[in-house]
């Protein structure tokens, strides 16, 4: 059975999606356990796959039994196995933690919600596993479509921001598709490994150059990289809480993974880093992303919006780290994909817990929360420390790799930007800690005449998942060295030093 792991990791959630809908038509309460079961299965498969990859190296899976250039193949190496486990973990943990919230928000549409949820996960996992450039596009669209729907289902400005998200996301995906079409035009194949074999002879061709640029632009739009980030804060901050804690950690990170995959394994590093000579401008853009994201985060007084701006900055970390072009920088970027997924999950989950209890996402309304919600705030502190980059949380280690990469590449601007953003994150989070710790609790509901001091600790399941994510943050930090030496080192092609 373990030979089928690469297929099963997608097929389990996919098949479950349809069963969930059918089950929910019979009885609404079936939706959650079915989803949990499927995601657990998918998570276990992903972990098994990672173990298998560590033991035996690259795992290939030929769908429909046709060998690669003719059929579609899944190709799992260290890089995607790691990202796959991260995606599956985030999906499962978030599902467990947000059960009560979802029940409150979407009581009458649980079936469709969980169907979309699990299809989103299937799409993202498929993007990570697939070895076929066009298959990636189809999965991208599944993840995107379900994401649009989930993001748009909220009061206020959510539908409008989701519609803008659709426009920009579609342009990004169409550009990616065009890039793949250009590659197909000159090579006649869609398989990534086959493309990597056939492309080097064609590097002088202008078609390949424009394919490269088009793909890169499309992916940058999809991941919310700095000049194209405008959709991201709106879409993520207006989304319903259980959705933003799912979409925010995963979608941008998976897109960054796709960029790394395309640059390292479809185009060769020699082409991407040396011949195209865009490393320098990309790193500068990343610096701009980090600085702009940090300052925009500083300028807002709303919790979720601040966190989305932090995501813009974090995207800058990873893209910049990757385009440093040396082993340390790329290791840092890949490690940061995993760490940031868990960090963002943790911080958004605790934000969701706070917002659901306080009833507002203004930072000023968080007074005295340490007394009322000690566990949630404790986890929030851990996540904040990790985002700032305090050892032994995991955020420190990926930042360490990124900074050493920047030094090794001589990109002191990038290093300065990382340090500056750490400082600003420090300000951001300690501002919140201060309000929540020192200022006395003030019930803002009291103004309206009905006295409710309903603010109390989040539901039990949520607390457990919050603590689990906090522990994960520490664990990732403590084992960071092992992750890098066991997995990430093998993921980066040998040629990069």
């Amino acid at each position, binding site marked *: 059975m373990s030979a089928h792991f690469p*297929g099963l990791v997608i*097929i389990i959630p996919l098949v479950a999606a349809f069963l969930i809908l059918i089950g929910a038509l019979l009885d609404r309460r079936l939706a959650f356990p079915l989803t949990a079961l499927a995601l657990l299965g998918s998570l276990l498969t992903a972990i098994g796959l990672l173990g298998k990859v560590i033991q035996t190296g690259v795992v290939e899976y030929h769908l*429909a039994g046709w060998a690669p250039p003719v059929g579609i193949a899944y190709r799992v190496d260290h890089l995607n196995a790691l990202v796959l486990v991260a995606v599956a973990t985030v999906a499962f943990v978030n599902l467990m933690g947000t059960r009560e919230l979802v029940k409150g928000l979407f009581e009458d*549409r649980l079936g469709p919600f969980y169907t979309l949820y699990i299809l989103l996960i299937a799409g993202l996992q498929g993007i990570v596993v697939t070895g076929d450039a066009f298959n990636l596009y189809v999965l991208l669209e*599944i993840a995107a479509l379900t994401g649009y729907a989930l993001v748009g289902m909220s009061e206020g400005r959510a539908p409008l921001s989701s519609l803008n998200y659709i426009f920009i996301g579609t342009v990004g995906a169409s550009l990616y598709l065009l890039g793949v079409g250009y590659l197909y*035009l000159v090579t006649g194949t869609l398989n990534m490994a086959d493309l990597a074999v056939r492309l080097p002879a064609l590097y002088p061709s202008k078609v390949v150059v424009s394919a490269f640029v088009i793909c890169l632009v499309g992916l940058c739009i999809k991941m919310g990289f700095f000049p194209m980030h405008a959709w991201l804060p709106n879409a993520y901050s207006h989304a319903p809480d259980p959705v933003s804690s799912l979409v925010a950690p995963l979608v941008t990170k998976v897109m960054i993974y796709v960029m790394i995959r395309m640059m390292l394994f479809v185009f060769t590093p020699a082409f991407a880093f040396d011949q195209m000579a865009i490393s320098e401008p990309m790193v500068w853009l990343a610096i701009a992303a980090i600085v702009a994201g940090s300052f925009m985060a500083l300028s807002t007084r709303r919790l979720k919006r601040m966190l989305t701006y932090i995501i813009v900055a974090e995207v800058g970390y990873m893209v910049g780290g990757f385009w440093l072009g040396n082993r340390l920088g790329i290791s840092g970027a890949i490690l940061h994909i995993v760490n940031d997924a868990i960090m963002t999950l943790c911080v958004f989950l605790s934000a969701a817990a706070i917002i659901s209890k306080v009833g507002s996402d203004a930072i000023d309304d968080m007074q005295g929360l340490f007394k009322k919600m000690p566990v949630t705030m404790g986890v929030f502190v851990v996540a904040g420390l990790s985002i700032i980059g305090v050892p032994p949380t995991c955020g420190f280690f990926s930042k360490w790799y990124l900074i050493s990469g920047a030094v090794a590449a001589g990109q002191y601007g990038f290093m300065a930007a990382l340090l500056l953003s750490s400082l600003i994150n420090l300000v951001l989070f300690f501002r919140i800690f201060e309000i929540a710790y020192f200022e006395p609790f003030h019930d803002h509901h009291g103004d309206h005449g009905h006295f409710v001091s309903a603010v109390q600790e989040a539901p039990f399941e949520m607390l457990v998942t919050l603590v689990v994510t906090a522990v994960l943050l520490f664990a990732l930090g403590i084992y960071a060295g092992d992750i890098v030496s066991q997995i990430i080192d093998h993921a980066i092609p040998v040629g990069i030093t």
Partner: protein
Amino acid sequence: MRFLALITILMVGGLLFYGTPDFPAWGDPESPASLHVSPYYIEHAVEDTAVPNIVTAVLADYRGYDTMFETAVIFSAGIACLFLLRIYRRKSTTTRLYRHNLTGITLRIAKGGKLPEGSAEFERIDSLWVPYDMIIKVTSRLVVPFVQLFALYVIAHGHHSPGGGFQGGVIFGAAIILYAISNDLRRAFRRLNEKAALLASAAGVLLYAGTGLMCLLLGGNFLDYSKLADLLYTDAIMARSHGILIVEIGVGLAVMAVMVSLYYNLSSAGRHDEGL
């Protein structure tokens, strides 16, 4: 805004323009795109799968995995519309309008009053003015069976002529939508209600994925139809052909149901009461 738009499209246009001079000429049979993988498909499709329509063979077999996700895309679009738009509410409490078909008189029935649902002489109508449109109703009644028949033909004949699950499914869905437009939404619900449409869409994709899973259980890779040979009492090649037919039926079912459900949700803005 205009200026920004102009600059953006000029940049994108320039980007796309840059590579074009190096393209092979349009329609060149010797272009690299036509020399690598696609000759394999053309030359081997019939002996591999016994399907003369190469597009169908590639769609449902060589790249069947893509197609499964493509069905999943349309399924998720249907679910997304349902999720976004559907308004779950109790029975409407406002007055209902009925028309006596023979005389064209409109009756207004206040809350509490009741008319038998299946009455042939009276017909419930929307609160907007709905004319008694015999021409459209009769024509649609005439055309719909032919459209449905044609849809089935397109699905079944996808092996030999242009067609297949998507096209057939869309045509079948169009037939039901035509019925819903020419009558009204409530009447269409009597033929295919919301739950049935949802069930059919899930069942259609499940048929596809289930076929793949069956292949996996029988020892092949996912979607490797040749492993179904024993189950279908044929050889491996014909099993591929039959497997393609099975998944095409699944696709057709799913697409039909999703199209109808999209129409239901979009046309009534999720209220499922008074449509177009």
